């Protein structure tokens, strides 16, 4: 058992990092709905947030283009209002936090959805969820981004079909709509 604040050493006397034991039950809010999971039963300590969302909650949107090394951005979700790579985020670290996926963004009627549609800002759609979440995070913190700021905010996401220019148009249109334009 790990006791917070207690110093521990391993068998050869080296001080180890003080790791808190994962909670036995975690609770998190996903797209406005509360969920509880038993660690070791519903999920494992090494279950990623992406797998929890997909396997336990049936949310399709966090994808796996790079298969878990965090280099494609297609699994991006919002965690307490900030974009994170759900393939590199442990589910147990999300205890007490709020998650938003593109399903939630769409349900909330965010103008990004219409803007992506209007601008044909997708082709196969496999990466699209990650782009929309990253764009939502940008618009939440900066409602009036420049093109350069849009590019920077979306630089961690890969689209092999190459919808980048249309995505910039979509983000600009969504920003205008949020301003009432």
């Amino acid at each position, binding site marked *: 058992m790990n006791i917070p604040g207690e110093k521990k050493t391993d068998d050869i006397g080296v001080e180890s990092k003080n790791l808190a034991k994962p909670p036995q039950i975690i609770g998190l809010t996903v797209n406005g709905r509360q969920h509880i999971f038993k660690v070791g039963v519903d999920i494992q300590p090494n279950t990623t947030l992406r797998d929890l969302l997909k396997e336990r909650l049936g949310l399709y949107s966090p994808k796996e*283009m790079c298969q878990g090394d965090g280099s494609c951005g297609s699994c991006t979700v919002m965690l307490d209002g900030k974009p994170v790579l759900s393939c590199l985020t442990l589910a147990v670290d999300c205890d007490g936090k709020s998650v938003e*996926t*593109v399903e939630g963004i769409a349900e909330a009627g965010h103008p990004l959805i219409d803007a*992506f*549609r209007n*601008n044909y800002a997708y082709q196969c759609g496999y990466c699209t969820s990650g782009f929309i979440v990253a764009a939502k995070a940008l618009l939440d913190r900066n409602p009036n981004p420049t093109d350069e700021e849009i590019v920077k905010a979306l630089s961690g996401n890969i689209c092999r079909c*190459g*919808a980048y*220019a249309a995505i910039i148009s979509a983000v*600009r249109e969504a920003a205008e709509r949020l301003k009432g334009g």
Partner: protein
Amino acid sequence: MEVKERRLKKPLRENPYLTFTQWQFPEDPEYRIIGKVVPPKDTDRITGKAPFSRDIKLPGMLYAKWLTSPYAHARVKKVDVSDVKSMPGVYDVLVCGDPDLQVEGSPEGLGVCEEYPWGQCNVKRPDIAFILPCEAVYEGQPVAVAVAAETPEKVDEALKMVKIEWEELPFVIDRDEALKPDAPIAQLFRGQDVNVVDPVAADLHSYVPWVAPGSDKCERGDVGKGLKEADRVIEFEIKVGTNCWGGGGVEPYASVAWIHNSYLDIWFRVQVPWMVPESAAGAPRGITLPIAASLAGVPLDKIHVHIPYTGAGFGGMNWVGNGALPTLLAVVLSKRTGRPVMVLADWSSFSGITEEEEGHYKFKVGFKNDGTVTAVEIWSNASRGHAGLAIPGCEKLFGITTIKNCRCESTVPYINKAPAACYKHGTTETIVLNEVFSQVAAALGKDPMEVALKNDGYFGHPMHPDMDEVKTKQGFPLRDSLKEVIEAGKKAMDWDNKWHPPGAKKLPNGKYHGLGFAWADEWRAGPWLPFASDNPYHAVLYFLEDGTATIKGMRTLIGVHEKTTYCQIVAEEAGLRYEDVELDHEFNEARLMFPAASGGLTWNSVILKELGMKAKRKLLEVASVHFNKRPEELDIKDSIIFERENPENKVTVRDIVSRYKAKFAGGVWATGETVLKGTEMPPTPREVHHWGRQAAFVEVEVDPDTGKVDVKKFVIVNDVGRVINPGSVAGQQYGGVYMGLGRAHTEEIIYDPLTGVKLNDSLTWYHVPTITDIPRLDAIAVETGLGYSAYGNMGVGEDPNCVARAVLRSAVYNAIGKWIDEDPITPFRVLKALGKG
């Protein structure tokens, strides 16, 4: 010919990074829905609700994966899975050599190849792939053992427990090395004592009819005579490296099979779901389902096919190893376990394929001082597409130039890399075509467009006047597509003001300025098949009592706005509202609508146009009873049927369909034969000529200190014949350029020469262009009507990538004044060319 330029309204495709322009012509008809930007149908892709293959979940479903080879070449000596079988949650362990995979005459067990039933897939076929081989011929290959368990995590744990004794074997990853007499044999199972692909087994003739059966070369005229006629002869060579990520799409492959109550349900991600004859020779493609039925022991009428959304394909999806292998393994495991099984092909992203252009090319070109090319001789060892034999130059140099003396020859080796497959088909051919003309233009100090126009033609003939009669007879306008795309592109690039001799312009920032130009034909000029005599493709339209209509026909939704464009055409022709038409792409029984990626709209628009026309005729026939008028006295617009002479006398389609339900019970169906262009022209099967042209113009800055190439501006011009949907066309143009530029200078797989193992098979180290790498792009769609499809339209999927892939070489030459003989054009290679490497 007067050109009417029409610029689309903002903001759809006009921002600092992309401007989309259509060049239309005064005589082009205006349509109600076609050519318009309509709300796309497949918005599930935006809302996160679109299920892709990996999202499928069935009650009791098991998961399965393969072991993958850690070696470039190795054979399994011994497998011990005793610890695996007893693991909790493990349901099945399949080992190579298992009796369920045995096939007479195939030591590696059940194999599939692209065009033949598996009984005919002998080991000499270069495109063969085995479900579970005992010999690994490249690192990352699925091999030796497959495990099915309750969860993907348990599969991973189980695979780690497999004890396997490998026999490491000598390997060869360089194509030149593989052809040397003392080279190690790369793929022992083939039973050959050399690495050369057998041209008879490769059967290139079925793809390129003018290559003689069993030949490894194509020839026209007398190359020796052509070289003697030349004022100058140049020789040069290039070596092209490997790039592969995303060649089969971005979604790692997955397939689900479920054998239950004598039925087989399949969810899969393949390019061609059902067997269809594509080529004029009638070679069947899309063989997965017949084989799956055979393995499952069910007849074809007991297969239910489900085609989830697809994370793109780009051509590599057509390689049977990507789509067919996971599907067939899923069938085998479902049969053995009695459970639905999802096979996860995690290896497919970086180990599914290598791309088609990798190889060594040697050129000898003779030409006149005016730029006329009199002879071309090419030898190469590239394995362009379909994991088999290829002869670069045999398609485009032969098909779209005036060159009378050509010889293109290939000696293709087996090596220890993943099979080379199509990746935006035509990439290799476009590189070869442009290498010839760019080098000739450079040698003569001429503008490359002058040389291109001088040699543009058709199978050794000038386009004008030789092909005018054919064009006229087939109902085409006498347009010069290359001239028109060049005119549009030069203007957009401001070429005449920017063009300069090689290495002649150094900018104030210390960088060299360069311009590049590349061109090609449109590969998908129209449906290829012998429509009139053996057309199996069709779609069905059913009207429903609420006035809506559903197009039924099997088709993979690969990500090119298929639902949207198909519904646009049917709604246009039938007089329906766009929003009243939907596409059911999983309709098994009308499975013959052409389902693949390349030219999907090019092929299907003839079927859809005819379908819409027949639907309209049906509605008017039924409505004529209601109006007590003859059908020709009536018309339909926006789902309202009305009397032409008295438009106020009207009724809705919904009212007619609901009132006369029985009349619509059988639906309407169409094959497209009646609207196909060029059907007047014998012989049968009808030849599809490639009249349409594409061009790329690029402006670069090259840093002589770092070797970095910055693309400052790009102009892509595609003769698409007719724009069906501007949003879709602009997406294909932009996406193709993006992909082509990545493959031209930032994407390359590095192999360890000591082990043959990939060193950068991660998106962290393999640089796919991101949004930060955007150059300014002007995309121009020229609409000449020179395509064979229903509206004179032709494809746009392949070519933006192909010309973008090819154009950077000439731009960097123009900047630094030196050709780079290795490709992709990385900073290291630029510095090497500058004598700094």
